[in-house]
């Protein structure tokens, strides 16, 4: 089903009209209510009356994560605190956490875009959803929760962790949809196997997985072990939380709800827009949010955009490609750009199964060294040292020919790399510690 067909299948002109009206009002609101933006507009010599349509958005300044930190905790809010009914915050491991707030209308918006999201993934009213995203300051759990209520599904708010109980409830309650991070879905499959539970026999049909980048190969692996459709969800708490974009059954890009979250793709260095289909940094403007609106927020996520109508689900909403990585996840090692997802693709090809790996970057002298630690599995283990060394060399060679970097490879014992309940820790960078 399509939750808001009048929006999700609207023609380009209608969408543009909606976006233009929203943007004009947004700039007025921010100019009046948020000192940060009032100053930024003045610096750029922009008056609200200069903004006449969505095309004028490129005249507006960008907003960066650092701006949010500097205006900690509430200075970015465009509404008085007594109208802000819910506040979330990032973990803030480096400095001030990022704080986001929601008015009653914002929570309604969140429910709506998440209801759309679940429907895009194939969900229907009446479905049982087991929600293993964390509930708490992290927006994942509550976002799915509000969307499920809005779509009139039955939500089972397990949150993350207590994995054996997750598996028992999947069987006993018979959820049709599971929501969690892809790495946790893999971990659950491992635990289920240890418990002797045949997860393919469960009623589960759809997984809505996100909150961390994952590759197409990893999707195939998850779909194989679970016997489900694994769909990619995209969101970030600064914009709303989960509910920014979602893959439909075509599995060919994520439909972004551009009527309320206006997307642009820019070159992160020149800040100029890139052509349709080209990779760049995703920039989003929240056109209708009340408490915590953002103009041209730089997500640091690398993707591309496709404005063609989706022939499979019929939506006209543009599609962003599966994320290629983050500008700040990108490791620069000896001048070479490396994304963990590139290493993951290579390992999946070689190990023929979901790789558990970690990238350790160290500086020895003036030279950066990348060590790829890979857990050994039954498929590739041999009693002959020769064959194991060939395997190591093969990984080294594939990384060198695909990425152009000579990395060290260390084979490690199964389950020796820490499993995540939330986001997988793929990179340990010891260069600055």
């Amino acid at each position, binding site marked *: 089903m399509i939750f808001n067909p009048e929006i999700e299948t609207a023609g380009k002109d209608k969408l543009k009209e909606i976006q233009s009206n929203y943007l004009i009002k947004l700039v007025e609101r921010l100019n009046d209510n948020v000192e940060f933006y009032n100053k930024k507009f003045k610096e750029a010599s922009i008056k609200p009356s200069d903004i006449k349509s969505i095309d004028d958005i490129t005249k507006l300044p960008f907003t960066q994560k650092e701006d949010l930190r500097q205006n900690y905790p509430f200075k970015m809010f465009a509404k008085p605190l007594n109208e802000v009914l819910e506040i979330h915050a990032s973990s803030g491991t480096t400095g001030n956490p990022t704080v986001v707030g929601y008015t009653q209308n914002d929570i309604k918006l969140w429910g709506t875009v998440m209801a759309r999201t679940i429907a895009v993934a194939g969900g229907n009213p009446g479905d049982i959803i087991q929600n293993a995203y964390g509930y708490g300051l992290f927006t994942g759990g509550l976002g799915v929760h509000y969307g499920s209520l809005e779509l009139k599904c039955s939500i089972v708010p397990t949150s993350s962790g207590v994995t054996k109980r997750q598996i028992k409830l999947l069987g006993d309650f018979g959820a049709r949809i599971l929501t969690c991070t892809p790495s946790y879905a893999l971990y659950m499959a491992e635990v289920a196997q240890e418990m002797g539970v045949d997860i393919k026999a469960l009623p589960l049909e759809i997984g809505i997985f996100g909150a961390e980048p994952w590759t197409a190969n990893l999707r195939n692996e998850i779909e194989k072990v679970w016997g489900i459709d694994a769909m990619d969800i995209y969101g970030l708490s600064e914009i709303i939380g989960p509910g920014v974009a979602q893959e439909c059954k075509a599995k060919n890009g994520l439909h972004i709800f551009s009527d309320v979250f206006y997307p642009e793709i820019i070159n992160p260095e020149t800040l100029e827009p890139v052509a349709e289909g080209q990779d760049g940094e995703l920039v989003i403007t929240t056109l209708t949010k009340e408490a915590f609106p953002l103009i041209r927020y730089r997500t640091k996520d690398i993707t591309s955009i496709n404005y063609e109508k989706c022939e499979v689900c019929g939506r006209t909403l543009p599609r962003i490609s599966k994320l290629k990585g983050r500008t700040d996840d990108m490791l620069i090692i000896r001048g070479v750009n490396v994304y963990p997802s590139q290493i993951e693709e290579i390992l999946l090809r070689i190990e023929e199964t979901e790789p558990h790996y970690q990238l350790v970057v160290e500086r020895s002298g003036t030279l950066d060294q990348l060590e790829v630690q890979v857990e050994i599995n039954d498929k590739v283990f*041999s009693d002959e040292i020769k064959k194991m060394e060939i395997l190591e060399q093969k990984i080294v060679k594939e990384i060198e020919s695909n990425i152009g970097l000579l990395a060290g490879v260390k084979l490690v*014992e199964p389950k020796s790399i820490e499993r995540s309940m939330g986001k997988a820790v793929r990179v340990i960078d010891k260069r600055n510690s």
Partner: protein
Amino acid sequence: MKVKQISIFIENKIGRLAEVTKVLSDVLVNIRALSLADTKDFGILRLIVDEPDKAQATLKNNGYTARETEVLAVEVPDRPGGLFEVLNTFEENKVNVEYMYAFAGKLEQSAIMIFRFDDVENALSSIKNTSLKILTHEELVKLV
């Protein structure tokens, strides 16, 4: 005629080898022969035990990567040239030895060596019409 060998992947870390032997000792599996091949970062431990299936299952349950390989236990005459005769037989039949190691127990006139071949079936047929003797798993574990 073939003997089951258990191979285990272990990281080159203090105490790992001891942990493996503890896991087997806890389920009363007796190790009769072993060989450890190592690189800078990891090693492969190969074991001949009295109960290979039990050993394999126990190791798996304890999170180790372990697999069974078929090897041959060959009697090697305990005199000068004894090992040469054995190896020569395989060479003539173009059977490649991947690795080999000694078995702890001994017969009166000969030692016993464990051979891992690239092609175990070919190795078996190459000794059919020779004086070379191989031991079954049952014979092997009975030796003192």
